[in-house]
């Protein structure tokens, strides 16, 4: 047994994160998944305790230590001091520490470690031994486990001290062992920086091995955030950790709605969560899960993402100017990385709230193979009929699932098999007393995807990652009946993708990232109904959300389309001046090919080859300041259904955009960042309705322009607090046809201010607030109306396109979480109070029957949402 005889007791690592800015300076992205190997202190230096220790007996100093790839300490800051000379003593000692470096995917990486240095007086000297020992006392071994209370996660590195004389440290399974303990009562202490000191008395009986299990309440589990998965620098990229996503008020832990709180993302009414990024249309922003595109982002009404947030490890968001590793879109990119299944036993959760319920189970299968699986099902369809009348029936139902196998055969390879899918069904009926006037609407959408990914690490830090996926989607299927008028559409898509990337550090100053990105689909589309309307300049509805189209112009189409897009890319990262200057020229070759209506008179093929040069530059004049800029060209395929011979135009070309981004970021403290970004986007070939009779129904005439800037001040998790304030000032315009005047974009919002803050309180409480202020969206007002005698209705005559604007939006959301932690499981409850002061926020306008009067329709009123969750 090892004795404890120093004046300082070693504290343990609290948490560690990869060094964001220094990693970024070396060409790494600022965020990454969990470390494959945490750093380990291999050389400890005892601090010289100040005289004040005699009076205070013990003291704690929490340090933030930057450890480089070699394991040496580069910098130490005091996160929480004790004063009286303790801080200086702890820093001086920590500067001499040596670590075994942390690793990501087997590669040493710089890591930031939070470390608590514990000062304590030595135990009083032991009484002198008896002069004669009559006989060796009987002993028995002690075995034990130290687990985190609630989820039973093993706690490694915990000091287990018996009688203040013997100490063992728990291993990575939380186990400890004392070979021999004398018969009788002993004191036992558990000491570690991740939990409060724990003292107990144990009784050792003769002839009986003692087995102990302790459940302790840990403070913060190790959290590694997102640094360095990709090598290419993104000029603007924000990352949200799981802890943040779950706690943002007003989002109910939804993974994609959390993105709406980041700079550059516009507000959408009714909490629908559409991502309108830097003035781009919602469909221009693409979301990926583990590198595979998600075809449908939201369930019914946009209130829930189709990907359960409980599967998410981290989320990264690039609003524009992103690298060549991504393409196919003109807006932003959301990268969702799912969490690896836990290997420390079987765990899971069950969650219930007013809208749906979900569960998840995860754990090891073998030493190298682990699994996780989750399912969510709505039950709003069960109780909604209680609130609807017999003449109006609404039955929305959705479910989604995720299942994952994770295989680590050796240190060089990592395989992952992931299945995920989603299903939405909606039935809506309005029954009048005349069956001929009754209407019904049925909609059913789904997707089912599977992916396999393989990461292989070669010698010399070169890596190869390959991700292949296949899926079957029904992106739209609807039947509408209104009296004799029947319309329907049904789209199906078989999707297949492949992405392979090689990352090769060729020289100390040069790294090459190259790969190929392939997306293909076989798409069928059967549709009967009205052709797209050409209501007015701008193509928008007459009111912000209301109906509009006439009902003439019916057509039927049976479309099939092969769309295969192969896009190779390469990026060379040049680093100069001790990596303070990074220049990354990049090229992506955007190849789009289409073959449609095969075997029919409408058969067509088309191909487009569009080079996409991009350039990123980053310069760090000082360690905490980085200046960055990027310019690039982007292309996006028209939606498959837009190539319909009857409802679209087979000759549509890809849309294009130029992104120009510049700004700087300043690291005020290790966890406090300030980022200022300016952006300009020029969009061409946008798909818009034809202008005049004889034009194709859809054309590539649209032009867009967006410019603005955003400011972000963000405090990452620190002392139980995280939060950020973001402000975006922007203007987004569209020009539908070259000979028409430009107008505001439908979601142009001049000012977007978001403040998010969350604080963890004692006793399992956590509170959070979110405040938002957003300029109202533009809309096209009706200036008059014409009575249509045939249909007994009024047809509005539009005023200037998007010439009117809704009133501003302001809202405060509050959230309180409470967690009860038991030995083997935990129970959490939350109250998410949306629109706490019941602001009347305009979301649209509605008119009377002849458009002579109008009224504002308000967004959601005060809305409490309750949730309950059990983890084990």
């Amino acid at each position, binding site marked *: 047994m090892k004795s404890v005889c120093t004046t300082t007791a070693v504290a343990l690592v609290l948490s560690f994160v990869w060094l964001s800015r220094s990693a970024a300076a070396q060409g790494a992205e600022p965020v990454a998944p969990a470390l494959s190997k945490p750093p380990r202190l291999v050389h400890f230096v005892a601090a010289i305790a100040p005289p004040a220790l005699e009076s205070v007996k013990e003291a704690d100093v929490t340090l933030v230590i930057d450890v480089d790839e070699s394991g040496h300490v580069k910098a130490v800051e005091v996160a929480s001091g004790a004063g009286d000379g303790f801080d200086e003593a702890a820093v001086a000692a920590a500067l001499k520490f040596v670590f075994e470096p942390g690793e990501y995917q087997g590669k040493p990486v710089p890591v930031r470690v939070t470390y608590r240095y514990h000062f304590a007086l030595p135990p009083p000297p032991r009484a002198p031994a008896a002069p004669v020992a009559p006989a060796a006392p009987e002993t028995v071994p002690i075995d034990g486990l130290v687990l985190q209370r609630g989820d039973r996660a093993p706690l490694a590195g915990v000091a287990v001290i018996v009688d203040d004389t013997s100490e063992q440290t728990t291993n990575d399974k939380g186990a400890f062992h004392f070979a021999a303990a004398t018969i009788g009562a002993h004191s036992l202490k558990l000491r570690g920086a991740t939990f409060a000191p724990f003292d107990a008395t144990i009784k050792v009986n003769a002839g009986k091995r003692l087995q102990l299990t302790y459940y302790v309440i840990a403070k913060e589990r190790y959290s590694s955030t997102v640094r360095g998965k990709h090598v290419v620098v993104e000029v603007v990229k924000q990352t949200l950790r799981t802890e943040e996503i779950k706690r943002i008020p007003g989002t109910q832990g939804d993974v994609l709605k959390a993105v709406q709180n980041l700079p550059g993302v516009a507000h959408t009414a009714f909490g629908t969560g559409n991502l309108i990024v830097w003035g781009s249309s919602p469909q221009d922003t693409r979301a990926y899960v583990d590198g595979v595109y998600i075809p449908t982002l939201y369930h019914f009404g946009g209130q829930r993402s189709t990907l359960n947030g409980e599967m998410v490890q981290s989320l990264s968001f690039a609003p524009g100017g992103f690298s060549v590793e991504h393409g196919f879109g003109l807006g932003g990119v959301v990268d969702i990385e799912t969490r690896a299944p836990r290997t420390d036993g079987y765990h899971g959760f069950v969650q219930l709230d007013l809208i749906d319920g979900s569960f998840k189970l995860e754990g090891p299968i073998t030493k190298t193979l682990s699994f996780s699986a989750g399912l969510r099902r709505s039950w709003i369809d069960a109780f909604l009929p209680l609130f609807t009348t017999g003449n109006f029936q609404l039955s929305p139902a959705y479910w989604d699932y995720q299942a994952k196998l994770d295989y680590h055969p050796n240190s060089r390879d990592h395989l992952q098999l992931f299945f995920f899918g989603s299903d939405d069904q909606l039935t809506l009926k309005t029954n009048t007393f005349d069956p*001929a006037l009754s209407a019904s609407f049925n909609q059913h959408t789904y997707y089912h995807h599977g992916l396999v990914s393989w990461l292989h690490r070669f010698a010399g830090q070169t890596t190869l990652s390959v991700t292949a996926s296949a899926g079957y989607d029904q992106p739209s299927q609807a039947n509408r009946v209104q009296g004799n008028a029947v319309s329907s559409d049904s789209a199906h898509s078989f999707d297949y993708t492949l992405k392979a990337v090689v990352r090769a550090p060729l020289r100390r100053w040069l790294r090459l990232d190259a790969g190929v990105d392939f997306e293909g689909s076989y798409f069928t589309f059967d549709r009967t109904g009205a052709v797209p309307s050409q209501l007015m300049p701008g193509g928008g509805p007459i009111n912000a959300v209301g109906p509009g189209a006439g009902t*003439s112009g019916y057509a039927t189409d049976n479309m099939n389309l092969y769309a295969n897009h192969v896009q190779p890319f390469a990026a060379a990262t040049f680093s100069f001046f001790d990596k303070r200057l990074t220049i990354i020229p990049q090229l992506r070759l955007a190849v789009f090919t289409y073959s449609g209506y095969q075997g029919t008179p409408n058969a067509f093929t088309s191909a487009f080859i569009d080079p996409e040069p991009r350039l990123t530059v980053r310069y760090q004049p000082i360690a905490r300041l980085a200046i960055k800029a990027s310019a690039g060209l982007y292309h996006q395929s028209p939606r498959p259904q837009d190539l319909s011979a009857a409802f679209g135009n087979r000759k549509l070309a890809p849309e294009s955009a130029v992104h120009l981004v510049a700004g700087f970021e300043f690291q005020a403290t290790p966890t406090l960042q300030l980022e200022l970004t300016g952006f300009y986007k020029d969009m061409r070939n946008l798909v818009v309705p034809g202008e005049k009779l004889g034009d194709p129904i859809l054309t590539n005439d649209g032009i867009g322009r967006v410019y603005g800037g955003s400011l972000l001040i963000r405090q990452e998790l620190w002392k139980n607090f995280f939060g950020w304030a973001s402000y975006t000032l922007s203007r987004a315009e569209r020009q539908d046809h070259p000979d028409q005047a430009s107008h505001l974009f439908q979601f142009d919002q001049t000012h977007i201010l978001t403040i998010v803050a969350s604080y963890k309180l004692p006793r399992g409480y956590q509170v959070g607030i979110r405040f938002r202020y957003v300029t109202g969206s533009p809309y096209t007002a009706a200036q008059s109306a014409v009575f249509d*005698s045939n249909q007994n209705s009024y047809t509005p005559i539009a005023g200037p396109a998007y010439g009117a604007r809704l009133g501003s939006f302001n809202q405060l959301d509050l959230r309180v979480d409470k967690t009860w932690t038991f030995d083997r499981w935990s129970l959490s409850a939350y109250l998410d109070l949306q629109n706490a002061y019941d602001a009347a926020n305009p979301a649209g306008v509605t008119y009377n029957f002849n458009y002579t*009067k109008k009224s504002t*329709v308000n967004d959601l009123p005060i809305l409490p949402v309750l949730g309950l969750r059990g983890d084990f």
Partner: protein
Amino acid sequence: MRRLGSLLFALGLVGCSKSFDPPSYVSGLRVLAIKAEPPEVAPGQSSTVTALAVATDGAAIAFAWSECDKAPLPGQAINRDCFTTDLSMQSYLTNIGSGATIDFLMPMVSATDLGEPDATGGVYVALRADAATSQEASTSSYRLRLAGPSAPNRNPTLAGVFQGGGISELDAAQPPTVHAGDELTLRGVFSAGSAESYSVAGRAVTELLTIAWFATSGSFNSDVTGESTDTVLKLDKNLPPSGSAIDLWLVGRDERGGTDYVHRTLSFQ
């Protein structure tokens, strides 16, 4: 999803907005219907077109009729340029008469000149009616169906208005007496044969007939009913002085431009 959100919005499931007077409440200048007899004509044939217009203040109503020769764009019932106030664009419009009733001669056009067919397979010539009093003005449209290969459409005929679930007919000559708070169950009845059968895209369908209800007081629980179905007029608001008459109009329509209307009064005490 956006479509669904709009649908829910339109249904009032989310959000709040103030309510307006229903379309059935007639106040000021209103054109309630335009009827063509016959409602489907071939090129070179004429039709008598009549506007049912009301000015509740008793003002005289002047009409100006025009034909619009600009075909609708896909998705439009009538080209929006037909309603422009921009004089430079009014070359699409041809003056065809004045007064509440005009005779219109179908021009020598072919179906392809008139845009895409509607859900009933028909194409139409667009007529514009500008009605005005000294205080108000309103613009209306009527699409006169071009005769096709099938049997031409005929106007439906409203045979009567019944009260109390079809028990007693409202007599145009002897208006029933009603009081504030009364609820009258009303039903409009079409003559037999009003709902004609026709073919569209190879599918045989029978016309759906509708009745739009209008009144100068009160509100209907349904502003539009189907054939031989009831609505309830509740005399709860916009009531006239005692001893006045409440005007009641029914406008019957088929899907192809066929129209008929009747007028009744109620004696309010």
